[in-house]
């Protein structure tokens, strides 16, 4: 079942590579395949039962490279299933959004379908080599998206993105090899490695291996100070590229924390927990402040990703402060971090889809070049304002559920982490200021003659925001899946 979900988009991508496929067919094929994938994920979700510890649900396993103990091994649990679902939904939103795309739609559809396979594959991978392959392929795919469909200084931004994150992935590979060689029976099997905990009593090597993995993941996430590839990549990427990059690809970094670093290297994680917490707090505040200082709306939203991923890092870092607090506090912080991954995916993807329209209509993301946009484009204004409130963590949206859990868990563990609260105040000011400059007042500049959202441009981000409201009001839908898994994870880190 999982393999079908993962590789169905790839099969469709190969079909779309045939040059004789007409554009119209290509666009609708993309939507159809993405829809089928969402439906299949829904079936998996409906039939999902929490696997016993040390196992995965819907797992599949075949021999692949037996020589090095690597196999094609996939499965889901409470940590990965929400991300799989989020991924499928975001790609569907991108497909719908692109129903009117004119620029090489067939190849674009094929490329995004390829990326969808890669993204889904990463979240279900239970083997480090498999994980790494998907991790790197995502970089390759996104490079072509930015370089091929981007604008402005796309070639340079794409190259920077590629080199930076590729370098990060090499650090990650180094860490994986470190795990492999230090295991009692060398293997890349993630479940086995979690059980064995290589390097448990070796703080030096354990620390080095963790450092390599952390750097690799921190570049991808990104956290301060490894974030500078993100703003240019987003600014120059096409709208759907930004949506996938921020919505899905960034989660590969944070997912690595909860899937690999924490459970496999609990000792080292605890030793370095404070460093991780501080990196999280700095990312929160730095991302918020630098975002506030932007004039380019798309760059601004890019920096909110640094801010939001900072909350995730804070939450997972707190989980390592075992001596300081109760299990309940650490559990809720991790649950919040996991929830934030899904929430940020939905909300930021929606915002990037919306903001992409600005360039399409008026050729610029410069906030000062607009004003009073709510008059000619009420649908855009409504959705953008809703997205902004979602992103600044207003209750009723998913972000609140995430941030409330992260903050209460973090503060209960280490009250000093309360300084990160300033992040939600600054992002509030940032978004409201942006709304004011972009939407309110007299209609002027780029807002004059602005064509409002088309149906696809409206429903793609709207459905993502509706989902954010649904899980923001009824968080048990997700937390019933997440909570047992984060409980296990917190125990693993406490070993």
């Amino acid at each position, binding site marked *: 079942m999982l393999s079908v979900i993962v590789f169905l988009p790839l099969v469709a991508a190969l079909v779309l590579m045939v040059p004789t496929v007409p554009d119209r067919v290509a666009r609708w094929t993309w939507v159809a395949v993405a829809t089928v994938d969402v439906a299949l994920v829904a079936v998996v979700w409906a039939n999902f039962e929490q696997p016993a510890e040390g196992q995965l649900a819907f797992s599949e396993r075949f021999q692949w490279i037996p020589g090095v103990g690597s196999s094609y091994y996939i499965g889901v649990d409470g940590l990965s299933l929400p991300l799989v679902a989020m991924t499928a939904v975001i790609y569907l939103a991108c497909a719908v959004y692109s129903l009117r795309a004119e620029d090489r739609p067939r190849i674009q559809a094929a490329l995004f379908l390829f990326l969808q396979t890669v993204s889904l594959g990463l979240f279900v991978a239970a083997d480090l080599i498999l994980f790494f392959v998907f991790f790197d392929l995502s970089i390759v795919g996104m490079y072509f998206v930015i370089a091929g469909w981007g604008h402005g200084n796309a070639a340079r931004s794409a190259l920077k993105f590629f080199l930076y994150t590729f370098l990060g992935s090499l650090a990650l590979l180094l860490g994986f090899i470190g795990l492999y060689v230090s295991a009692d029976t060398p293997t890349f099997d993630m479940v086995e490695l979690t059980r064995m905990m290589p390097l448990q009593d070796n703080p030096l090597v354990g620390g080095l291996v963790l450092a390599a993995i952390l750097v690799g993941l921190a570049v991808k996430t990104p956290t301060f100070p490894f974030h*500078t590839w993100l703003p240019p990549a987003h600014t120059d990427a096409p709208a759907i590229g930004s949506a996938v990059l921020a919505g899905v690809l960034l989660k590969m970094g944070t997912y690595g924390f909860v899937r690999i670093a924490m459970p496999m290297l609990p000792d080292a994680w605890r030793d370095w927990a404070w460093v991780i917490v501080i990196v999280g707090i700095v990312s929160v505040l730095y991302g918020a402040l630098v975002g506030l200082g932007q004039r380019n709306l798309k760059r601004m939203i890019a920096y909110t990703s640094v801010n939001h991923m900072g909350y995730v890092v804070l939450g997972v870092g707190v989980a390592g402060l075992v001596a300081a607090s109760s299990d309940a506090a650490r559990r809720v912080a991790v649950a919040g971090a996991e929830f934030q991954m899904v929430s940020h995916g939905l909300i930021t993807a929606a915002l990037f889809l919306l903001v992409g329209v600005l360039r399409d209509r008026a050729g610029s993301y410069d906030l000062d070049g607009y004003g009073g946009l709510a008059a000619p484009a009420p649908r855009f204004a409504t959705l953008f304002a809703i997205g902004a409130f979602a992103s600044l963590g207003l209750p009723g949206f998913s972000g609140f559920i995430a941030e409330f859990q992260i903050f209460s868990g973090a*503060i209960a563990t280490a009250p000093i982490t309360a300084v990160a609260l300033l992040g939600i*105040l600054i992002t509030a000011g940032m978004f*409201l200021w942006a709304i004011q400059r972009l939407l309110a007042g007299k209609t002027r500049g780029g807002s004059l003659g602005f064509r409002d959202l088309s149906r696809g441009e409206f429903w793609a981000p709207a459905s993502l925001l509706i989902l954010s409201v649904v899980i923001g009001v009824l968080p048990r839908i997700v937390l019933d899946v997440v909570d047992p898994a984060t409980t296990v994870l917190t125990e693993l880190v406490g070993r």
Partner: protein
Amino acid sequence: MTALWLLVLLPALVGAALCLAPRVERLAGAVSVATAAGTLVLAIMVAMTQPTAAVAFLAIGGFTMRVDGLSAIIVPTVAAVTLLVVIFASRDIREARGRFHGLMLLFAAAALLTVVAGNLVTLLFAWEIMGGTSYALIGFWWRDGHRLASGTTAFVTTRAGDLGLYLAAGAALGGGAGLALADLPNAATPWRDLAAAGLLAAGLGKAAQLPFSFWLSRAMDGPSPVSALLHSAAMVAMGGYLLLRVAPLLEATGWADNAAAWIGAATALLLGAVAVAQRDIKQLLAASTAAQLGFVVLAAGLGARSGGVAQLVGHASTKAALFLAAGAWLSALGTKQFGGLAGAARRWRLLGVSAGVAALALAGIPPLSLWATKDAVLTAALEESVWLYVVGLAAAALSAVYAGKLLVAIWRAPDAHTATHLDDAQQGTRHVGPAESVSVAVLAVGAAILGMLVLPPLASAFAGTLGETPVTPGIWELTASGAIAIALVLATARWRPPEPRWATGWLGLEAAVYRGVVRPTLRIAASLARFDDTRVDLVVDHTASGSRAGARWAAAADDRNVDGSVEEVAARIRRAGRRSIRPQSGRLHHYYAQAVVLLAAVVVLIVVVGR
């Protein structure tokens, strides 16, 4: 229990539908009034049955709602004021009615949920939705950029206080007491102090107490019905309500209660002075709201819940009436300046008399509501500290002055200057309909009679609802404060009160916050943005260009040295090869000679090695 869910869900769902559904303009008002009426019925039902409800939400706390004695009084108050305001607005608001009424109902739902919230998760959930919808309501006329900016100021300022609720939630979890509001006093120290500090900040922020008061001035950019709801029974009142609700926690810390009492008293005094200095009716009412809420916060700090609740309820009715009256005059006359309102009360009698009664209540004239409720609070203050009582009494005197100023402004005969002020804010309709007047009249009745709650014979039953023994103000205190109020109102009719500049400008709070907090933050943000572009990224770019330079050097080195040595070796081998050809001369005697030399060498080698 169903009624409790419906109490929140009915206005929330209808509100959301009105906001999002297109083309509901004509129906919006009627739907909204019907919904608000239904909500009031539900509110009365839950007040009588006092149910609780809970559903799983987060691992650390469910979504819990409970109605106890305190909320049983506040819930119907919020619902009733909402209904009257919505009736008024169904006539007064003439554009984007779907959005307006939708947001009002959403706001009311959030306010009602705030009142019945049983734990910190539920409270924060409601609390910030209230803040978010208030932003949208204040900035309702978004075409005027400054109105939305005022919404931003209000939201960001109150959110600064709201951070306290996140802090309190963390502290409650850390202190082991759980998130339930009622359990907070049991948290371990110092967690308990942290929780109290957080809740205090949140309450003070929403209640527009010092130093947060300035957002209330900006919030006056919203439509008048919005001001009437936000600044009487909801939003601002919720700040006071929260502090009354957690009064046991404040008391348990031993410092937070004193802090609340003094901040409340100081706000009552200073914002009272601000109110005296205003010439814009909405600004006067706004400053007076902060000042009157000061008495509620004072009561919360003193643990005098019954006085505080009575003050909250009486003020809600009084202030809603006055804001709606101000809104009716703004729509009709196009102005909110006192200069232009002369004679407004005479022109529309029912409205004028109702507003007059409410203003007299605000002044503290016996036997109207705020006269008694304020004294109930002051009596408790006297038991605590004489100074607190003196400050409170001075604040009460100021409220007589500003209410007197308001009364004079609306009842005096128009003069030559009045006409010049008309229509200075918007084009007036010169019309006040019956719906508007009746709404105000009903609220004025409340403003007149709600003081009974703290006077015999109702006082003991009322305090009993809150689980307290009644603190009835003494006959001398009541007489004295009543006499002061009457004297001061009469005095303002004779002499104009002073309008010092520090008070006109709301103590310079907004400017101070802008200079001290907002501008530095924006500067830091701008320089960090530059830093990020030029420095952090430069490291990355330098690494990249450095490795390119390194690659170029390596390439050159490769050409010159590595490849050079290879070429060198090759050249030498070539030369050696050329030399090695020489012995192959083709002459037989040369070969023999070479063979002999080689043989001799082999023999020598064998001899040497063999030894």
